[in-house]
């Protein structure tokens, strides 16, 4: 698919050399394959067809980490693309690289297209906005964790599928009932650090790291060993010990079990929708992520995961104009609404969300708006705006390791999180040293 598009581009370029020379080429590196890759290719094709001044060339560069590495290596070699997709945990790395990136508010503002920073949903853009309120990268694909329920499994275990699961207290009772009803896999999760620590902290309005979760500077320290987090992980650890929470791996391995109908409850990204809808041969529904009643200010808002588009330095003025035009096109209401409906990712503008509602999409696909509501009901606070921590990909690895220590019963939640803080802080100090 991708090759044929590049091939077609190459042929058309050869056939019309005059037109091709007048067009400015914009390189766009991304991390999408499969269905998502096709949708990105379609967006780019539509943009290219819509005007004559610029040609966007999209290239797949591997998974998120590989794409970021490709971008960094290319920058060092002076061959960087104009637009680079970077996943949310790479945000601090990109922000610290002043001189390597050009803020999108600048690029889009200067491209001549209208740029209204207020059009973007606060909880989405907040992750990618500086403390001064400037948008540094364009949110591209954003999702947030929700609770997926296998209604058939609930019924089979003799539990009312409409049981209120809005709080972890209720979930705990339900897990007991599921286990007693013979369910082997009452609860499973994907992305444990993202859901059960990062989002858990934001949702209860407790800090994950000092300095406003790192938004306030690189001299930040982890605070994930706080009372609220430890209490949550202790409960999860107990559930793991009792066989009520089944651990399957660090990424979204649990998705296979849930989609196969093996598990009753599943905490996973809202973007899991497409896969679950396609594969699940049971009745399912989507609920907001549970919270602990009486802890912090829950429910505050959850934070996002996904990726944003960064504009890299070192190109011609004309090319920046093209990049800005392309980004404005991506932010437009129609493109966003279509993307949101096709993928299950959150819309990045409020207008796109309203357009989707007006088109009746949420009525036809119940539950697809749960994530949007969960994100937008409250104004984000300093604790729920997002995370901006250097070496965060690696810190997540550390957190994963420590969480595994809890699930296997090797460590208490407090021990594990104290250790995660100690080890993570060492990496943060190194990041601080590298970006002094």
């Amino acid at each position, binding site marked *: 698919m991708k090759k044929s598009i590049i091939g077609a581009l190459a042929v058309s370029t050869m056939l019309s050399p005059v037109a091709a020379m007048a067009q400015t080429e914009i390189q766009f590196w991304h991390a999408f394959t499969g269905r998502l890759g096709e949708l990105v290719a379609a967006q780019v094709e539509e943009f290219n067809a819509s005007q004559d001044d610029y040609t966007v060339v999209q290239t797949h560069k591997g998974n998120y980490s590989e794409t970021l590495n490709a971008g960094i290596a290319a920058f060092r070699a002076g061959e960087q693309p104009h637009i680079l997709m970077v996943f949310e945990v790479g945000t601090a790395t990109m922000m610290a690289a002043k001189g390597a990136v050009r803020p999108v508010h600048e690029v889009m503002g200067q491209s001549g297209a209208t740029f209204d920073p207020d059009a973007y949903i606060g909880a989405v853009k907040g992750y990618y906005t500086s403390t001064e309120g400037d948008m540094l990268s364009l949110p591209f694909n954003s999702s947030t964790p929700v609770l997926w329920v296998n209604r058939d499994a609930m019924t089979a275990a003799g539990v009312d599928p409409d049981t209120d699961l809005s709080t972890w207290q209720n979930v705990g009772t339900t897990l007991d009932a599921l286990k007693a009803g013979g369910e082997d896999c009452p609860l499973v999760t994907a992305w444990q650090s993202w859901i059960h620590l990062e989002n858990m902290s934001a949702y209860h309005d407790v800090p994950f790291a000092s300095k406003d979760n790192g938004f306030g500077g690189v001299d930040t320290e982890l605070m994930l060993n706080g009372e609220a987090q430890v209490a949550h992980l202790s409960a999860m650890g107990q559930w793991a010990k009792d066989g009520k929470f089944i651990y399957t791996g660090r990424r979204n391995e649990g998705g296979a079990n849930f989609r196969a109908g093996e598990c009753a409850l599943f905490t996973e990204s809202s973007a899991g929708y497409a896969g679950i809808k396609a594969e699940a041969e049971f009745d399912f529904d989507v609920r907001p992520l549970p919270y602990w009643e009486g802890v912090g200010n829950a429910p505050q808002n959850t934070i996002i995961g996904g990726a944003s588009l960064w504009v890299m330095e070192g190109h011609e003025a004309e090319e920046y104009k093209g990049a800005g035009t392309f980004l404005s096109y991506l932010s437009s209401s129609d493109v966003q609404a279509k993307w949101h409906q096709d993928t299950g990712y959150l819309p990045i503008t409020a207008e796109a969300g309203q357009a989707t509602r007006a088109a009746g999409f949420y009525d036809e696909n119940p539950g697809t708006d749960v994530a949007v509501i969960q994100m937008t009901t409250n104004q984000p606070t300093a604790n729920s705006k997002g995370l901006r921590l250097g070496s965060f990909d690696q810190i997540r690895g550390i957190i994963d*390791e420590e969480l595994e220590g809890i699930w*296997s019963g090797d460590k208490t939640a407090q021990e594990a999180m104290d250790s995660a803080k100690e080890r993570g802080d060492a990496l943060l100090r190194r990041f601080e040293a590298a970006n002094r």
Partner: protein
Amino acid sequence: MEKRVTFRGWVLPLLLIAPQVLISAIFFFYPAGQAVYQSLFIPDPFGLSSQFVGLGNFEYLFGDRFYRASFVTTAVFSVLVTLCSMIPALFLAVMADRLIKGSGVYRTMLIWPYAVAPAIAGVLWLFMFNTRVGVVSWYLGNLGYDWNHVLNGGEAMGLVVVASAWGRISYNFLFFFAALQAVPRSVIEAAAIDGARFWKRFWTIVLPLLSPTTFFLLVVNVVYSFFETFGVIHTITSGGPQQSTTILVYKVFADGFVGQDLGASSAQSVILLFVVGLLTIIQFKFVEKRVHY
């Protein structure tokens, strides 16, 4: 009196070794030098700024208990991989060597796994041992054993060792098999006439005659388990759980390409360079003495 053939003058010999020297310089000395240089800095990933820290990176690494533990992990891992890939290979080679009919078929079948790339091998084994859908873990479950390599460090280590050794058995088999064919029949026949049974002949004649091959394979397999098992570990455990399968090379990758911490990563490559150099010296100095050529 030893007869020596020497070149007249310096130009021709220098020219003759130049390609080798050049290749070593470009692909070995230059990158190694770069690694040594970089290990003294904490650079930012984009190469925009760099802080000179002297031996700070090394200090940081040796202060990290997980880094120190990774030496032990690497030692355990490479000993296990080397043993698990050499012993079965030798056994299979001896068996295949005894066959009169059909040894070609067995030989071909035994060599196949070598053609499988480490990452693919990793995925295959991962599928079989997947904690929920894996065939092997399902059978183990029926036997009452709860297989869970995502949480159990010992099981994770066992799985990566088996997956790493599996393809390697073929490679070792090939060398052992060739070496066995080179063992002179006359010696074995003489021993047989003297009344030595098969295993007696194997221990006292065949195995000592195989020692150059065994030594060669020992060196190659240790190097393999140090460097080329990356794909297997990356696909199966990503170094987990709790770093129980993080060998030194995997940590170089994780720190450099996941953590973007190029300073610490370079320092680790330098340390690794010394470790492997030391191992090779030990092997040639002490083990080679017991080898009969």
